[in-house]
């Protein structure tokens, strides 16, 4: 449960942050949460791929983007409501609407996917978009673990590679154009 909560907290920071430290912290928390969930699911190699991709992307995020934490800048009330609302909705769906084992994985995946999607649709700077993409890639890979038949390590490796690749992207121009 702590891992799922860490994932939500990471997504919370990504949604609410504009500065590089806030974004890096959010991505790191999301990575840790997903790594633990994948490890518990018995995919140790896949967990390693998630950890490696997410960790490198988090460290790289610390090096680029707006200075400082930038958590909850003015005008972020709607995002705060979104982050809390998405968490509650995901909690309800994963525990009450959906049944069967794996509620923590479902909560982590649903909350992360929904919050990253909402963040990408808002007015957003390139560093935050790239963080969203890295977290989204990891979320998609971890979501594949919800299948009855194990997806194998390939989605996790692909997601790790995307997170690594995204951390190397240089966006040219003032706004990325």
């Amino acid at each position, binding site marked *: 449960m702590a891992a799922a909560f860490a994932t939500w907290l990471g997504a919370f920071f990504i949604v609410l942050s504009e500065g590089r430290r806030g974004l890096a912290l959010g991505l790191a928390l999301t990575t840790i949460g997903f790594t633990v969930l994948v490890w518990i699911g018995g995919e140790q190699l896949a967990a390693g791929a998630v950890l490696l991709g997410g960790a490198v992307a988090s460290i790289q995020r610390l090096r680029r983007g707006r200075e400082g934490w930038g958590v909850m800048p003015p005008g972020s009330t709607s995002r705060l409501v979104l982050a809390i609302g998405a968490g509650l909705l995901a909690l309800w769906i*994963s525990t009450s*609407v*959906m*049944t*069967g084992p794996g509620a923590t994985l*479902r909560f982590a*995946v*649903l909350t992360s*996917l*929904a919050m*990253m*999607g909402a963040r*990408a*649709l808002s*007015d*957003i*700077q*390139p560093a935050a*978009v*790239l963080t*969203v*993409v890295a977290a*989204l*890639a990891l*979320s*998609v*890979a971890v*979501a*594949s673990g*919800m*299948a*009855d038949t194990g*997806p*194998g*390590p*390939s*989605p996790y490796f*692909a*997601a790790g590679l*995307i997170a690594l*690749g*995204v951390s190397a*992207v*240089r*966006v*040219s*121009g003032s*706004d*990325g*154009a």
Partner: protein
Amino acid sequence: MAPELAIGLPAAGSLCAAALRARPKAAFATAAVLGLGGVAAMTLSIPGRASAQLGISLAMSAESRSLLIAAAAALALVVALAPVLVERATLLAWGLAGLAGMAAIAAAPSLDLIILVVLALAVLQAASAGSRPFATRLRGPVFAVVVLALAAASARGDGPPILSRLAAVGLVAGLSAALGTMPYIHRFEPEERTATSPIPWMGFIGPVLALAVLARARDLVPSEGAVFGALMIGLGLLNMLWGSLASWRTEGGASAWHYSFMADWGLALCGLGLAVVDGQRAALLVLYGILLSRLPLYLWSRQSLREKRPNDRPINLLAAAMLAGSAPFAGFAARVLLLRGATQVYWPLALVIGLGLLLWLAPSLRLGRSLGLPRGRQAWGVGVALTLNVVIGLYPQPFLLLAGL
């Protein structure tokens, strides 16, 4: 080993072209050789046979393979007969990157991997220089990724039947968002380079992506076939109507082309939504038409659009006839098959589609005129595109057999 090579060789070609950018001739030659190798691997791959050389089971369906070959042919056509101002090595690098991504999408064993490939392609496209802001270019594909992933998660969760219905809605909505059709139209800048614009999603990557997503989606929620069909047909009719009217009435010539892709996608979505073989055949012919004719003609119309030199020569009328789907072009065969399929399913639907087909006339005349007076390589290109389209229209069977239909 063929699927791996079909992905790896074009990707290597694209990377080589990018790395050797300072030496365009060497870049072009290297990329062309590797690209041809990739196309050979695609052509020689046996549909449905899985290969697991890299520890992941990769297999291509016959339909996806046929569209990949068509996409490769379209790329070869536009690179060989590229407009004078376009650098061939750059065009080839972008095209091969797209082709590698399409091969990966076609061969991916699960929807999750397809989603991840789409995300990677979106970042690659958005990271290059373009006139739209970085976040704007990623918005559509990222939204598509989120919706598709949420839909897949809903499909996999145990719970009430409404979950699988929501999953079906999400899968169709996500696909529509990835393609950039109604109601998720990607923001379009007329002056933007084609490679970084939304056009590749509709006109190059889209056909393979649609077939791959729909195939995996039907496996994910097998009980919701009727919901899928209804949604696809509804979206198809909406795109037919909106795309053709907007293509006719919009002010910008490039925007008119953008909307015309949307209108064609309307036909393809209707065909894919009909659960009969004729519908699938119609959709496939429309997708061949998008890849081999509409996309190349759009590229060759760009210079004339910039110079605002519309023309009414016979070649323009022929191009208009092809874009409108008149006989003997491929669009005509596709429309006949679509109407036949719709009649089998529910005849009033055929009536609605038949009336909708009339909407193609006015915008196609406009688009044909926008080609200007093709000269040199552009004239050859238009001639080849028209000839290919006539061949598919007159002899569709070999092309359908290639796709296993």
